[in-house]
């Protein structure tokens, strides 16, 4: 173990961390917005759309994120659609985030007892009002733990961006190792940084989940 190497390279790793956080925030914003729309579209009365969206979500969710990333970064240029590394990573991860968030939204809405829908309709709310002022606020509470869990997985998975050469924490670690050859210490430090970011989120998800059991 060589702790001097860790101290010396820490600033560079933290610069990578800044990009990890940037990617994660961008993906959470784009992916969640798209995911909520996809999730809600499972409940529209238009024939066919919920089924179609359900199929697409199931298909995309079955594909590993690494393959989505390679498909977008290496596969789409074959069609003349060349996307640089950073947007390609954000796009692939947003797609992943969107389909998974849509399942969280669907699950949250389906967990609301049917009587709530009927009660809302019987006091004269229309379908949109029922959704926005009765169902969604209740469902939100149940969506928070799995959604935060999803964000944690996403933060860990932003490391895959390094494979196509995006500069973030894992890439910063790789570059540092190419220079210092201290792979054990540097990767361990990178792991520790991910841990410090992810653990509070995991704890928060566990606490909110436990609180759901109580009224």
């Amino acid at each position, binding site marked *: 173990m060589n702790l001097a190497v860790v101290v010396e390279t820490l600033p560079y790793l933290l610069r990578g961390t800044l990009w990890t956080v940037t990617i994660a925030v961008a993906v959470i914003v784009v992916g969640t917005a798209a995911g909520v729309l996809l999730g809600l579209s499972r409940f529209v009365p238009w024939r066919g759309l919920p089924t179609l969206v359900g199929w697409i979500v199931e298909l995309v969710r079955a594909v590993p994120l690494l*393959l989505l990333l390679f498909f977008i970064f*290496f596969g789409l240029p*074959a069609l003349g659609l060349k996307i640089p590394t950073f947007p390609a990573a954000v796009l692939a991860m947003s797609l992943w985030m969107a389909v998974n968030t849509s399942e969280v939204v669907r699950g949250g809405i389906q967990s609301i007892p049917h009587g709530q829908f009927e009660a809302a309709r019987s006091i004269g709310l229309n379908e949109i009002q029922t959704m926005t002022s009765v169902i969604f606020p209740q469902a939100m509470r149940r969506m928070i733990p799995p959604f935060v869990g999803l964000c944690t997985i996403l933060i860990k*998975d932003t490391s895959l961006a390094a494979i196509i050469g995006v500069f973030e924490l*894992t890439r910063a*670690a790789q570059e540092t190792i190419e220079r210092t050859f201290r*792979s*054990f210490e540097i*990767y361990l430090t990178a792991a520790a940084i*991910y841990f410090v970011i992810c653990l509070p989120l995991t704890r928060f998800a566990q606490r909110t989940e436990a609180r759901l059991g109580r009224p």
Partner: protein
Amino acid sequence: MTAYSFEWSAVLRGLPYLLEGAGLTILISGVAMVLALVLGLALAAISQASGRLARSVVAAYVEIFRNTPLLIQIFIVYFGLPQLGLKLSPFLSGLSALVLYAAAYNTEIFRAGLEAVPHGQFEAARSAGLSERQMLRYVIVPQAVRISFPALGNNLVSLVKNSSLVSTIGMVELMFVANDISFNNFRTFEIYGAAAAMYVVIVLALTRLLHAAEGRLLRAPA
């Protein structure tokens, strides 16, 4: 946009290799899951039965492996450990990283499963004169496994998808084969598309299978 002519014959030529890769993905995931189930159940039992120290060690393992990227864990095993004198092949590195990662989740799932067994079941088993061992073997663990089954199934599905990461250290499976073929013939779109289709078939078949098994498990008498 430039005109692109698809060449699906590239997929046809690569198909035997891709199928072999898909087989390896299934095999690797299966072996890793069996090992991760054993390790997870053992650790959950240890943290349930032993003292504070053992419980803290298990909890630390679970938190560390669940809150750091699998990719970094794979890199630590494959690139980091040789620095300490422990050099493993890509296969063993990839497999052990996948096992340790999946086992951390399984430990947590089994722990929650054991805790979800109602307290009365323990008391009933004891008052029926069962020993600690018999109680766990015949009363508690069967119920805990049943409670844990859906979450374990989800973890297996994640494992199949996560196994694609070991391609980065040269362990041969579906993702590795897809990279290998498409970097040689440049038919990236077709080959990655075909590989994606194979993952979809594996994952959907597995999901249906787990769902059917879950239905049978819930109907079966205790």
